């Protein structure tokens, strides 16, 4: 019998989607969070409304790690369809909890685990009359059983349920009853199981549990966006849902009911892109949330905004491709697509948030950068960051923030000018001035995606054309120190050995990479780590690469897309960069990173 593990284990619930399991799992995670213990939640769900297998992972981590552990210690196997697979996935010494109302096949068992059967359906069928309640309460009942096994705080459960159902108090009693069914049964029959426990701590008091789509939507509100257009697509829909609900809360005149915003559900992503371009061209901060297939459709407009120099903010909540791919599974597979979206020579500004907190900040950054540089800006989030609840530091806001509306001429500015030319680099910073329709006759110009010279006139003259596209490139390059700088995590001791190894990664890989590196340090291996946060690459990126001999580039796609961008933008020998790639669609776990790094390090040291 293994020893008792406190505040360091992973619970996984296998269920059928559409049965209300999401709210039961959210409740379970919140209980632990409210007990002051850090948690990581990962929802692994199907592209389906009802009936397919769905999983929810809750990692309890006193150390506050942010990635997956790669293990399952307590499996709640509620779905007969996935029972075999769930049983196999459980780590040795783990607990399997299942509904023993019906017998499970005797051949599906293991000797190295503890099996706990709770008659959830039988108890719920006896206790609840309405068919729908029986299904829903079965899920709440397993929360009760898990609460008993882990010693969760019943007072907190009580408080949480009262908060959750503040507007439907009748449901509080129903849920409490279901909790008791599971709790009492487990206490009575399995009170002696002493493997995993949660002990209250005070590690979450200044934290919140939020997903990145909610924080990005909130960021658009704080950044002053007034127009949003979108076409519904998993997994970006909840970003617009968040923007809508905060606008309803904060931007509706209580007396007149009139809105200080406009949201348009477009007929497709092409139209959504056109709409935000039109609004931004006309001086309203605007954005669109989408995913990879949407970017593909928007590409022609992205090139137009790039060449005609119109601000554009796109949130790409990446999902696995190609084509429809696995729409509810995560990846970082649109890096190259977004870096060069559209035909012709195009290069864009990209931001890579690693958690919901950065989604909030980068939403505001993106709105500023798009107007400063008059160009498309992409926030490359993904399903893991966008749709999972992350424990983050409470978001903060600087009341002195002033939006950077970029170089827009007012009628007063125009009055002092001889003549206005839209694409002239007056200040030598590669960024021309623009004017807004309706403000002044002197500011009128013709916006075109066809060849134009620096004055804004149509041209088919090679030299005139080149002058403009060369300036566009210089403008893009000058954003390198305006995008969020990379974050360098130095190893706690200088890297050892004659080869200096290091790690580069981005976005949602961060939690797993940091944990894998900690693990390596405990084994005596020291690696510096840089997380890239923007494109074009900051000068620091090259300095970091130059300072090391061999660099592992860890990312979540098959084709080493970040590595490819590093090679195309920075003068670095190909063999210096070593890809470590994870692209199964499940959020990255530290074990994968640890194993891959360990293997690579071993081989490379031997070769050296």
């Amino acid at each position, binding site marked *: 019998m293994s020893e008792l593990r406190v505040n360091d284990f992973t619970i996984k619930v296998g269920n059928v989607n559409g049965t209300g399991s999401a709210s039961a799992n959210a409740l379970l995670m919140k209980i632990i969070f409210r007990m002051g213990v850090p948690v990581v939640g990962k929802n692994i769900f199907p592209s389906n409304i009802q009936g397919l297998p769905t999983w929810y992972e809750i990692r309890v981590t006193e150390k506050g790690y942010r990635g997956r552990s790669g293990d399952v210690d307590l499996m709640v196997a509620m779905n007969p369809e996935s029972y075999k697979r769930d049983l196999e996935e459980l780590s040795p010494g783990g607990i399997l909890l299942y509904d023993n109302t019906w017998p499970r096949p005797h051949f599906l068992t293991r000797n190295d685990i503890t099996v706990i059967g709770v008659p959830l359906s039988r108890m719920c069928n006896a206790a609840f009359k309405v068919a729908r309640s029986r299904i829903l309460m079965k899920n709440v009942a397993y929360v009760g059983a898990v609460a008993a096994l882990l010693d969760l705080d019943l007072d907190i459960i009580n408080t949480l349920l009262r908060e959750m159902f503040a507007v439907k108090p009748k449901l509080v009693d129903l849920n409490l009853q279901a909790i008791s069914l599971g709790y009492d049964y487990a206490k009575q029959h399995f009170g002696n199981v002493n493997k995993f426990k949660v002990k209250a701590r005070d590690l979450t008091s200044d934290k919140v549990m939020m997903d990145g789509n909610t924080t990005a939507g909130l960021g658009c509100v704080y950044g002053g966006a007034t127009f949003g257009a979108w076409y519904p697509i998993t997994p970006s829909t909840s970003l617009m849902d968040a923007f809508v609900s905060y606008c309803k809360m904060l931007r509706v005149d209580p007396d007149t009911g*009139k809105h200080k915003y406009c949201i348009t559900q477009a007929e497709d992503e092409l139209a959504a892109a056109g*709409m935000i371009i*039109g609004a931004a061209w006309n001086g309203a901060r605007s954005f669109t949330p989408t995913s990879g297939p949407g970017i593909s459709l928007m590409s022609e407009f992205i090139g137009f905004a790039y060449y005609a120099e119109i601000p554009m903010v796109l949130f790409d909540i990446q999902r696995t491709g190609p084509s429809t791919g696995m729409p509810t599974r995560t990846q970082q597979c649109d890096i190259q697509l977004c870096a060069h979206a559209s035909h012709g020579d195009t290069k864009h500004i990209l931001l890579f948030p690693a958690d919901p907190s950065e989604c909030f900040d980068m939403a505001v950054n993106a709105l500023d950068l798009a107007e400063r540089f008059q160009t498309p800006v992409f926030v490359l989030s993904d399903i893991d960051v966008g749709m999972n609840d992350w424990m983050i530091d409470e978001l903060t806001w600087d009341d002195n923030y002033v939006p950077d509306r970029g170089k827009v001429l007012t009628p007063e500015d125009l009055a002092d000018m001889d003549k206005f030319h839209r694409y002239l680099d007056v200040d030598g910073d590669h960024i021309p001035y623009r004017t807004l329709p309706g403000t002044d006759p002197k500011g009128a110009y013709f916006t075109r995606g066809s060849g134009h010279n620096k004055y804004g006139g149509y041209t088919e003259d090679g030299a005139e054309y080149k002058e403009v596209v060369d300036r566009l490139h210089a403008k893009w390059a000058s954003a390198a120190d305006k995008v969020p700088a990379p974050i360098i995590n130095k190893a706690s001791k200088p890297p050892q050995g004659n080869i200096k190894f290091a790690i580069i990664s981005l976005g949602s890989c961060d939690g797993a990479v940091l944990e894998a590196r900690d693990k390596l340090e405990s084994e005596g291996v020291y690696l510096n780590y840089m997380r890239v946060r923007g494109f074009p690459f900051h000068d620091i990126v090259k300095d970091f690469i130059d300072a090391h001999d061999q660099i592992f580039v860890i990312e979540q796609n098959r084709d080493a897309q970040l590595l490819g961008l590093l090679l195309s933008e920075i003068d670095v020998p190909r063999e210096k960069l070593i890809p470590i790639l994870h692209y199964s669609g499940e959020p990255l776990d530290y074990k994968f990173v640890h194993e891959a790094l360990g293997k690579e390090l071993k081989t490379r040291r031997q070769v050296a």
Partner: protein
Amino acid sequence: MTSFTKPLIRRKNEPTNALGLIRSDYDGAMSTLCAGCGHDGVTASMARAFFELSIEPHRAVKVSGIGCSSKTTAYFLRESHGINTVHGRMPSVATGAIAANHELAYIGVSGDGDSLSIGLGQFVHAMRRNVNMLYMLENNGVYGLTKGQFSAAADMGSTAKKGAINELPPIDPVALALSVGATFVARGFSGDREQLVPLIKAGLKHKGFGLIDVISPCVSFNDHKGSTKSYEHTYKYYNPAIHADYVPPSAEIKAAYNAGDVMPVELHDGGQISLRKLENGYDPRDRAAAVNKLFESAQSEEIITGLLYINEDQKDMHEMARMEDRPLNTIPYAELNPGAAKLKEIQKGFR
């Protein structure tokens, strides 16, 4: 090659509008279309309509897609902002621009390829949203810039310049507009400015989506015998059925028309559209009647023109979105920023 500037010539005693501007103040760059192109006539009609309505040029916005017709936004209103977007996608850009500032006069210029093939979806959805703009569809049944392919507006049996016969049924933008919710639906002819200029004025003053499908012959690729979009064919079957005049709020309605012939339609700005030449009690506010009339005239090979349908009661996009009266692009950031204290409060729900 760069674009040509049109020489500005001021004549003595030239008529001025209420702003003191002359007609040529509403011109743009020199047209680069073929000599005799129907589109140039439409461009001149649009410039005249803005001039006669005394709209300040910088308070107008021109939007277009790609194609011969879309190029024409450079050829009028040089003191207006214009945006030549991507092929078939002008309606979405217009929708966003209008959402940001609904106070300007928006005119979209498109063609039958831009609107009825590549851009059919956006064209239809802008009408559904009743976006407040006037959409000029310069219809010549053919692709000009790519040299003479049939468009989706080409009639069955119509022949191409090199003899090929079109066997596909046409998409009639007017019939389409009537079925998807446009609130001002008209057809005109580039060769009849007497009718077209007043129609454009009425369309600009109408609140909501206005469509004018303008038959505008292509002299280079679709003006031969066998074409149903040629000058000859259009003149032969042309029926200027319903004449619409815009009457500004202050002006008295001219008494020159016989009372029975004139039907006034009240507009949101307090002005009126007065409709003339109505046959047998035809009421352009009746959508079913408009559909009937359109299909009956098509059967008799007649090209019916004029204001076929108007609905001033339907909410436009701005109203449906319940936006404030102030344009979104003028709301100060201080009113949009909820502040740090509010952020703290919001996050209590995420504990």
